[in-house]
């Protein structure tokens, strides 16, 4: 048994506790812990991704209890990929939070950040549906703390809404799990896959109810219409680096949909058939349209980027709904891209807003220090978000269009027109933020500014570099993702790794 599998959960848990207990009053030590933790996590994720590429799916039996009686963690290509993505996102975000001093504006930023990473990593690794719920709660409770980091009236109010909404989602999750358990008598994902595939006709209705409720829960996480309305308020009011980290939280919903609806309820299941694909596709398209319109009509920078995040989730779910080799490969590629691009955009928006003093998009304000550099970054981020060449968003959308060629041509006009809408929206905002402001003479600053910190720009640059990397190495990457998806659509090795009792 490979004990490294549990390390991505344990490491942040221990570091988070350390940051609270030992480094309570020492922001420097907290920063060292936070940065060291995310670095170690990145190395760990790289090691795990190499190991699973070589050996195939591996299972970690917690407490050495055999599945399906004990809880298992499963490391396969998809979960390793998500771990790496989380670590790759966490590192620049930590750098940014340190560089801008966001982490010192409230208490326990780094501790909460580590707990959030613990929840994310656990959710990606677990092979047990109830354990998935537990890790969802871990990442949510940390996100509640991060969301209201720094305080302020609007942030607290938006935070209460966010918590209330997610508590309803958690309750729904429990209802769904209990329904599924009452039909199948198990919550181990591999065991569920076997039991659901051979379900008697009479139980089909109940399992469908459970599965649709589960889909609704993941849709809440992934901000899919009609349960997307928590996202703009939350993301726009959250601190910049926290909103950037939250970019991977919506992807937890997407990951869960990919995992559950390829492993447990694939379209070949007689009890459920293609009903999930039929539900996700229209929801994804409407999400995409709504997000693009939101980008066009947003009145503040934060809300604009939040709506762009919604649009990217719509694109992602549209790709997922294809449930084919090409479709899921495109979805995974776009998932990597959109996480990094959304995060970069939130950080850039935070850079611009913090210098400008207001996120309002109603009128131009005097130009600010380094506005040229930020404008260039904004330009690059907007290209990535809208899916224009030469960055990876373009390739992602191209892959999705290719996967939906043929009988799903409805997807084409929606994706192409919304891309245009987003380009217009970003161009409008960018010209107001940077061009029109350069016409207004800057007011002389009464007090000399601190020398600008370089670290935030390094963080944003790191994210954009990763996006460039995705673009340049798109060929080998999609080949690797293709094997990952083949593994998802033929889950026999995943199920075999759980060593379930025969006939049980």
């Amino acid at each position: 048994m490979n004990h490294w599998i549990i390390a991505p959960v344990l490491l942040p848990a221990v570091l988070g506790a350390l940051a609270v207990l030992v480094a309570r009053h020492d922001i420097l030590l907290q920063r060292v812990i936070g940065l060291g933790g995310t670095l170690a996590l990145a190395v760990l994720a790289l090691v795990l991704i190499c190991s699973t590429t070589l050996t195939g799916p591996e299972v970690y039996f917690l407490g050495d209890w055999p599945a399906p009686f004990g809880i298992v963690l499963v490391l396969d290509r998809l979960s390793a990929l998500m771990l790496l993505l989380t670590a790759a996102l966490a590192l620049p975000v930590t750098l940014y939070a340190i560089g801008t001093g966001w982490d010192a504006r409230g208490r326990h930023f780094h501790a909460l950040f580590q707990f959030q990473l613990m929840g994310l990593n656990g959710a990606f690794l677990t092979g047990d549906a109830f354990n998935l719920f537990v890790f969802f709660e871990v990442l949510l409770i940390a996100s509640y703390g991060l969301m209201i980091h720094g305080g302020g009236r609007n942030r607290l109010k938006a935070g209460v809404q966010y918590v209330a909404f997610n508590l309803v989602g958690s309750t729904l999750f429990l209802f769904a799990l209990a329904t599924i358990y009452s039909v199948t008598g198990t919550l181990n994902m591999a065991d569920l896959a076997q039991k659901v595939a051979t379900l008697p006709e009479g139980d089909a209705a109940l399992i469908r109810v459970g599965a649709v409720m589960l889909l609704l829960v993941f849709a809440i996480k992934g901000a899919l219409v009609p349960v997307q309305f928590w996202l703009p308020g939350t993301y726009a009011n959250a601190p910049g680096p926290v909103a950037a980290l939250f970019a991977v939280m919506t992807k937890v919903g997407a990951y869960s949909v990919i995992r559950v609806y390829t492993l447990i309820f694939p379209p070949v299941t007689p009890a459920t058939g293609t009903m999930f694909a039929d539900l996700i596709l229209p929801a994804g398209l409407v999400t995409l349209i709504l997000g693009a319109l939101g980008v066009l009509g947003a009145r503040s920078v934060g809300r604009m980027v939040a709506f762009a995040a919604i649009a990217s989730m719509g694109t992602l779910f549209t790709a997922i709904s294809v449930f084919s080799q090409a479709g899921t490969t495109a979805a995974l590629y776009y998932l990597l891209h959109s996480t990094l691009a959304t995060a970069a955009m939130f950080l850039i928006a935070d850079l611009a807003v913090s210098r400008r003093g207001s996120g309002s998009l109603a009128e131009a304000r005097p130009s600010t220090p380094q506005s040229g550099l930020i404008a260039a970054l904004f330009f690059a981020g907007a290209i990535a978000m809208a899916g224009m060449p030469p960055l990876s968003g373009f390739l992602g959308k191209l892959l999705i269009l290719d996967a939906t060629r043929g009988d799903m041509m409805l997807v084409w006009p929606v994706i192409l027109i919304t891309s245009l809408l987003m380009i217009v929206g970003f161009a409008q905002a960018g010209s107001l933020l940077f061009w029109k402001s350069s016409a207004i003479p800057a007011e002389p600053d009464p007090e000399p500014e601190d020398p600008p910190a370089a670290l935030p720009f390094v963080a944003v640059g790191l994210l954009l570099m990763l996006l460039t990397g995705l673009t340049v190495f798109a060929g080998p990457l999609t080949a690797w993702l293709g094997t990952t998806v083949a593994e998802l659509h033929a889950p026999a090795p995943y199920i075999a790794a759980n060593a379930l009792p025969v006939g049980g």
Partner: protein
Amino acid sequence: MELLVASAIGLLTAGGVYLILRLRTFPVIVGLSLLSYAVNLFIFASGRLAIGLPPIWSKTAAGYTDPLVQALVLTAIVISFGMTAVIVMMGLGAYLEAGDDRIDIDRSAAEENEDARR
């Protein structure tokens, strides 16, 4: 007994859903608690209802009831308890900051628009 448990779950859920649709923080929190009671009962019932049976296998007992759902319920209770504590604290914080306990951000949205017009 099935009817009793089922109607209890139904009533709790209906009351909870009604309350979380209210505009103030306090009823929403009470509604969330009611919902979590409902779901706890529901999980408990998903392991089948049995009277007087031990949750572990024993030679002397006539049978046994599913022990896993009891573990699940315990986990769910602990989590919902913690989450309720968090939302109470946040609701209180928002109330102290804003001076009212409305759950919507109507006024601040209006302010944002005002800010946009200025």
